């Protein structure tokens, strides 16, 4: 049986571990040189890899994932630095690109563990050099030992906002402000549910308390105004507090992000249907609790199947592998599946509380000013999308996101809507006066990331 696993983060590692234990030797593909996913990404050779420094409280987990990954490599067809740019479910084939070389990988069953990226709301000035996602700010520190600036502001919401601010302050950067768009009251309302998270919740409280103790400027319930700058990059960040007063802090960089969204493009190309998850405020691929999709042979695990975090990804990766094995006629220990299912159910309740504690502020996306750059790839401003949504538009109104893409090029550029998609859908929904679900979902297109087109060889 030919099995392919895409992704070598926590979900992929635990999936492959189970497949190998069952005697299979899957093709295992990852875009990074050394696996680990984004959360446990390892620095390149030459940089120190002290787990405690790099991963903090998660050092034990990271080390365990890395050790398992390294032990599995010789037992599988390990293909690092390889992009899966297309999947054809009818032919059960993956198209890959590695160091300029194309290949096809046939599979009978595939587990897609494609991870997540930051969810972003455009703010005036967000395309300036010096503004990155929160995830980017963390990756710069974790894998390159660098801060995105010397005096850094962090803006957005979610656990990552506080974690990255803590990590920067600890590494010696000056954190000039932590600006959370969620109010303190909203977080407190979710506190009882957050208790389910046990240690995860405790760590979150620790980061917040640590930042407060250092006297770092913290504001909750803020409304972003702008990230200002000059030719050299960022110079300041401005926001409005919960009482409507304007504030400003000088800085030379800003990390922004409002939670995560699944990188589910391959599931989309595999024709897995999607549903809108109102708790996450994300479109997520349809799967059962074990990771089976309605598409034969396609299984999903980790954040690419809906945001759950690294701990969930490990459990879900193992669970998806067991589902695949069971479907292929292998004998599976029923106690193990029940145990994993129980842990997933518990984690799902915590995750729902976490999403309520740090909700996606759709109103901020809906209120993006007309002259603010919305789609950074195509240079499109929010007002241009709004104009396309109006009945008097020459094309007729863009009543859903794919029409809006055709009319305005929103989401058509190099990132294929990964960055602007969530906010663009809210802008469109607000203009149309409908719920964001009614505006639909940007359809995926191959290649999932830009790949070079080889020049045709001319006949002699």
């Amino acid at each position, binding site marked *: 049986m030919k099995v392919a696993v895409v992704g070598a983060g926590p979900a992929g590692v635990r999936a492959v571990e189970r497949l190998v234990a069952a005697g299979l030797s899957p093709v295992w593909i990852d*875009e990074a040189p050394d696996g680990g996913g*984004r959360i446990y990404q390892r*620095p*390149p*050779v*030459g*940089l*120190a890899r002290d787990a405690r*420094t790099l991963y903090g409280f998660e050092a034990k987990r990271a080390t365990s994932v890395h050790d398992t990954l390294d032990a599995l490599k010789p037992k599988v067809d390990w293909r690092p630095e390889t992009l899966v740019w297309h999947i054809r479910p009818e032919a059960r084939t993956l198209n890959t690109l590695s160091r300029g070389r194309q290949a096809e990988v046939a599979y009978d069953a595939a587990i897609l563990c494609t991870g997540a*990226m*930051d969810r972003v709301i455009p703010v005036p000035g967000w*395309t*300036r*050099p*010096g*503004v*990155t*996602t929160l*995830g*980017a700010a963390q*990756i*710069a*520190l974790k894998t*390159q*030992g*660098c*801060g*995105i*600036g*010397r005096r850094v502001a962090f803006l957005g919401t979610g656990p990552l906002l506080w974690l990255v601010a803590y990590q920067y302050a600890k*590494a*010696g*950067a000056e954190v000039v402000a932590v600006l959370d768009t969620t109010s303190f009251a909203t977080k407190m309302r979710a506190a009882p549910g957050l208790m389910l998270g046990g240690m995860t919740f405790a760590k979150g409280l620790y980061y917040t308390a640590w930042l407060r103790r250092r006297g770092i400027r913290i504001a909750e319930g803020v409304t972003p105004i702008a990230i200002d700058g000059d030719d*050299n*990059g*960022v110079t300041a960040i401005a926001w409005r507090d919960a009482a409507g007063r304007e504030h400003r802090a000088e800085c*030379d*960089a800003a990390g922004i992000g409002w939670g995560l969204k699944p*990188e589910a493009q391959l599931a989309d190309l595999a024709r897995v249907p999607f549903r809108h998850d109102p708790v996450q405020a994300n479109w997520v691929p349809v799967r059962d609790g074990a990771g089976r999709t309605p598409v034969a042979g396609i299984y999903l695990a980790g954040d690419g199947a809906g945001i759950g975090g690294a701990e969930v990804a490990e459990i879900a990766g193992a669970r998806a592998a067991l589902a695949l094995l069971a479907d292929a006629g292998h004998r599976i220990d029923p106690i193990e599946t029940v145990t994993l299912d129980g842990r997933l159910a518990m984690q799902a309740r915590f995750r729902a509380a976490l999403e309520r504690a740090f909700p996606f502020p759709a109103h901020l996306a809906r209120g993006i000013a007309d002259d603010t*750059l919305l789609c*950074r*790839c*195509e*240079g499109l401003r929010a007002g241009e999308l709004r104009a396309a949504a109006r009945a008097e538009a020459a094309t007729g109104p863009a009543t859903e996101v794919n029409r809006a893409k055709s009319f305005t090029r929103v989401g058509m*550029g*190099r*990132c294929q809507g*990964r*960055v602007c998609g969530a906010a663009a859908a809210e802008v469109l929904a607000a203009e149309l006066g409908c719920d964001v679900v009614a505006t639909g979902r940007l359809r995926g297109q191959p290649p999932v*990331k*830009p790949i*070079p087109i080889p020049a045709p060889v001319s006949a002699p």
Partner: protein
Amino acid sequence: MKLVRLRDASRPRITLTLEGQAIEAQQGDTLLTALLAAGAGHLRESEFGDGPRAGFCLMGACQDCWVVVEGMGRVRACATLAAQGMEVRRG
């Protein structure tokens, strides 16, 4: 944008060029780190005239850090390791 080296900053030096100008970097740097820590400021200009760009996601998804390397063509600066003697142009 100026990346600031906060730790692990005394690795062996390498030299590359940006638009023909020598840039000093460290072994293990990505191109993005090498250029932005050395003071390049930005990596490319938006095709739509809305200003310079210097990457955004650092995880190979946003494609906003494209540069051109002699012999390699267009690459993502965040996902490409810098190497001794690389000749880089802004994307």
